[in-house]
């Protein structure tokens, strides 16, 4: 990755200023809602977008969306500030800024939209822009592959989401979140809605077994990882679940699906986190752990669980963004991210070390940091939860492992003797230190004064629960079971940290299955597509025609068999000799054309058919059509006769053999056409249009030939289009003959 420290431009030039100023301004704008929302109000702003579809851009600002909006813009501003140094000298820095701002817009729209369809559009905006961000280093095959993987996994979830939204619209009668009244849990469509929404949330928030794309998304530049992992992208799924909790939550299937998948993800991810040596990868897996925890507690759904989940959301956003940004500084300052190499950076990078340790302590849940508050409330909620044993065990295991992971990421690299690194360790530039330090200090401040965090947590929890929730955050009140559990967690975590090199070697024997599995799936899809193309896209005209007609025959046959087409019995009673004569005339002509080996016979037979058809027109009162048909027939013969002089004879060998498959298909298409036409003619006709033409032709349009009046007056615009086609066909053929004249081969 092209990283340069000397940008030569203050804050990365205009692109950089804009990228910092926009989120910062938005952050301030959102701050002004804090008192109002904190008091329990909900703000709605609405603009019509596609009125005919009922799509409006309605902003719904409640506790939940405001919390997210503040995180997105606040952390966004810090991340963009950080990027001015980290990527400010990159050739494609402006491009990066555009992607990042697009992503930020998508995320903001996602959390603020009141209308589900608008929400979906923003959901897809985040998917696409995250694809661009993860694949930002587009020269690397790995980045491209991982970006595509993220796009496909979350994009598939997006499709499920769209289907779910449509069903919600059907079930609730509205696409506006604020208009959905009550729950949909009793609705017959509940199960499909639930499955689709959960599929969307699980892909976006990377729950096992769809988690594999998230660690791979580390291919993105570090600020992007920090942003995607802390406040945004992956929290999209969590947001969706939280937002839908009042509407879809509270059922058994909701509870068990979320609790089981969330719990498994949390524990599984923490174990995998210990296994990594790249500290960025360690952090990636701890993000999975946090997502699993959030999903699990939203699934639990008690007031306490929601309070804990919303608290933990803030906790995690603070420490995760800080740690990721810190890793960028370390990577930058030392040239490596290997936990086995990094040692004793404390002296060389004191500010970074301070930020890292504060954030890591918060991650480990050590008092007096905000992480401790978060963990205490998780424990308290888990002990009261239904299925408390499972929830508590899961959160205990995850927390203990988190403690160890915190040690690996932020303790080990900084203490001890300074080790050899590819670059001589040095502190990062100021813009890269502001973010991590500020966020880490915020974690400390919120831990010491948790009452201020209540401003956000209380309205957010109320929005998720669908009713006011009592929120009272505190650092320490009494020695209770949750507190004791915390102490045990520290002890376990400490032991795990000491043992982690051995654990890592033990775990290294288990190879990851999901990622190679993904590659096999993709290979399978590609091979399947190639195979299908090989079968249906042979480059042979005959094959294309055959497939088209065969599809048509099958579809029509299905309709006939299933009784969709009402076929009356054929009646021959009203046929007179002249009718039989014309029928035989046409049939003989068609048969002869199909099977003759002589061009001249074929042309003559075609003429027979054309004249037969003209006779039919005359018989049934269409003189204009009959005349036209006869004239065209004459001209066709003239043209064919002229061209034939220059073309070779039909090759008898290739066509005298009857082609049985083609014949069978042709006969079935013919039979089906007959059946369908009989059915059509038996159905009653809607003659309103004809009646109108008949009634107005003479009095208003002054014409007694209704067909001609339709052509040149009633439907003159259509006729104009048609003569234009005729003219263009003639000019095209003319150009083909004259324009491309070249020596004949």
């Amino acid at each position, binding site marked *: 990755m092209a990283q340069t420290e000397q940008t030569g431009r203050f804050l990365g030039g205009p692109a950089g200023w804009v990228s910092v100023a926009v989120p910062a301004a938005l952050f301030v704008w959102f701050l002004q809602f804090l008192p109002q929302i904190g008091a329990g109000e909900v703000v709605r702003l609405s603009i019509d977008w596609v009125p005919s579809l009922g799509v409006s851009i309605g902003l719904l600002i409640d506790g939940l969306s405001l919390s997210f909006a503040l995180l997105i813009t606040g952390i966004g501003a810090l991340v963009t500030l950080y990027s001015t140094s980290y990527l400010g000298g990159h050739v494609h820095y402006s491009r990066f800024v555009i992607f990042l701002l697009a992503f930020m817009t998508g995320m903001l729209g996602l959390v603020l939209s009141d209308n589900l369809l608008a929400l979906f559009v923003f959901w897809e905006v985040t998917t696409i822009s995250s694809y661009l961000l993860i694949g930002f280093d587009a020269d690397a095959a790995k980045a491209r592959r991982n970006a595509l993987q993220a796009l496909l996994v979350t994009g598939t979830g997006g499709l499920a989401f769209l289907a779910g939204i449509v069903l919600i619209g059907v079930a609730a009668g509205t696409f506006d979140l604020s208009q959905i009244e009550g729950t949909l849990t009793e609705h017959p469509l509940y199960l499909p809605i639930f499955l689709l929404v959960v599929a969307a949330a699980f892909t976006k928030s990377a729950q096992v077994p769809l988690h594999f794309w998230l660690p791979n998304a580390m291919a993105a530049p570090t600020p992007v990882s920090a942003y995607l992992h802390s406040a945004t992208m992956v929290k999209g799924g969590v947001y969706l679940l939280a937002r839908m909790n009042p509407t879809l939550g509270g059922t058994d299937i909701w509870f068990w699906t979320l609790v089981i998948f969330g719990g498994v993800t949390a524990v599984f991810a923490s174990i995998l986190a210990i296994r990594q040596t790249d500290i960025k990868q360690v952090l990636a897996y701890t993000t999975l752990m946090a997502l699993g925890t959030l999903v699990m507690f939203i699934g639990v759904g008690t007031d306490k669980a929601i309070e804990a989940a919303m608290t933990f959301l803030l906790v995690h956003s603070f420490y995760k963004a800080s740690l990721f940004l810190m890793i960028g500084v370390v990577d930058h300052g030392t040239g490596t991210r290997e936990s086995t190499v990094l040692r004793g950076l404390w002296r060389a990078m004191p500010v970074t070390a301070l930020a890292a340790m504060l954030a890591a302590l918060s991650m480990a849940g050590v008092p007096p940091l905000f992480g401790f508050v978060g963990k205490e409330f998780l424990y308290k909620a888990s002990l009261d939860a239904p299925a408390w044993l499972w929830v508590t065990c899961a959160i205990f295991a995850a927390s203990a492992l988190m403690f160890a992971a915190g040690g690996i990421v932020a303790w080990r690299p900084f203490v001890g003797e300074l080790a050899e690194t590819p670059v001589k360790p040095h502190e990062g530039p100021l813009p890269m230190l502001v973010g991590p330090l500020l966020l880490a200090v915020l974690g400390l401040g919120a831990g010491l004064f948790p009452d201020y965090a209540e401003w956000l947590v209380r309205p957010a929890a109320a929005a998720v629960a669908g009713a006011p929730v009592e929120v009272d955050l505190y650092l320490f009140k009494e020695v209770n079971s949750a507190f004791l559990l915390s102490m045990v967690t520290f002890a376990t975590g400490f032991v795990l940290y000491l043992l982690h090199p051995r654990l890592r070697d033990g775990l290294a024997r288990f190879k990851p299955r999901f990622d190679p599995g993904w590659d096999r799936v993709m290979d399978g899809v590609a091979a399947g597509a190639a195979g299908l193309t090989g079968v249906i896209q042979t480059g042979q*005209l005959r094959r294309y025609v055959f497939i088209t*007609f065969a599809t048509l025959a099958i579809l029509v046959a299905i309709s006939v068999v299933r009784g969709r087409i009402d076929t009356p019995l054929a*009646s021959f009673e009203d046929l007179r000799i002249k009718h039989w004569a014309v029928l035989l005339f046409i049939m003989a002509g068609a048969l002869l054309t199909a099977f003759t080996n002589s061009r001249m016979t074929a042309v003559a037979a075609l003429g027979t058919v054309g004249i037969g058809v003209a006779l039919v027109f005359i018989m049934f009162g269409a003189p204009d059509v009959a005349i036209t048909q006869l004239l065209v027939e004459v001209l066709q013969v003239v*043209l064919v006769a002229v061209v034939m002089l220059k073309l070779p004879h039909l090759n008898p060998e290739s066509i005298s053999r009857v082609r049985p498959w083609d014949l069978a298909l042709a006969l079935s298409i013919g039979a089906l056409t007959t059946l369908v036409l009989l059915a059509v003619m038996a159905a009653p006709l809607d003659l309103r249009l004809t009646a109108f033409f008949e009634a107005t032709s003479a009095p208003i349009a002054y014409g007694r030939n209704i067909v001609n009046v339709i052509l040149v007056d009633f439907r003159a615009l259509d006729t104009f289009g048609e003569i234009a086609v005729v003219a263009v066909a003639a000019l095209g053929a003319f150009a083909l003959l004259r324009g491309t004249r070249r020596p004949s081969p």
Partner: protein
Amino acid sequence: METLVALMVGALVAAAVYLMLARNVLRFLFGLILISNAANLLIFASGGLTPDSPPLIDEGAIAPAAGAANALPQALVLTAIVIGFGLFAFALVLVYRAYQTMGTLNSDDMRLAEPEERS
């Protein structure tokens, strides 16, 4: 009478499809003529069949006699015939040109745009 036209259209379509599945593009062209005839007949017939009473209004009358043929499908078919002729003529020129360029009328051998796969 409905049966009559339905059988005609069926026979024409069957012959047309059989021809369009042939290798020789000239036969494909013959199939094209037949199928456009069939389509014209089909549109005409689905507007109802009324023998011997064209949609003409007598001098001085303001509406056609009761039971006159349906004028709408006739108008549609009339333009369809002319356009069908335009299409046919263009296709004919195309076939002629293709023969000049590629020296064959066998559609399997016409592989300028999609060359034979290596495999």
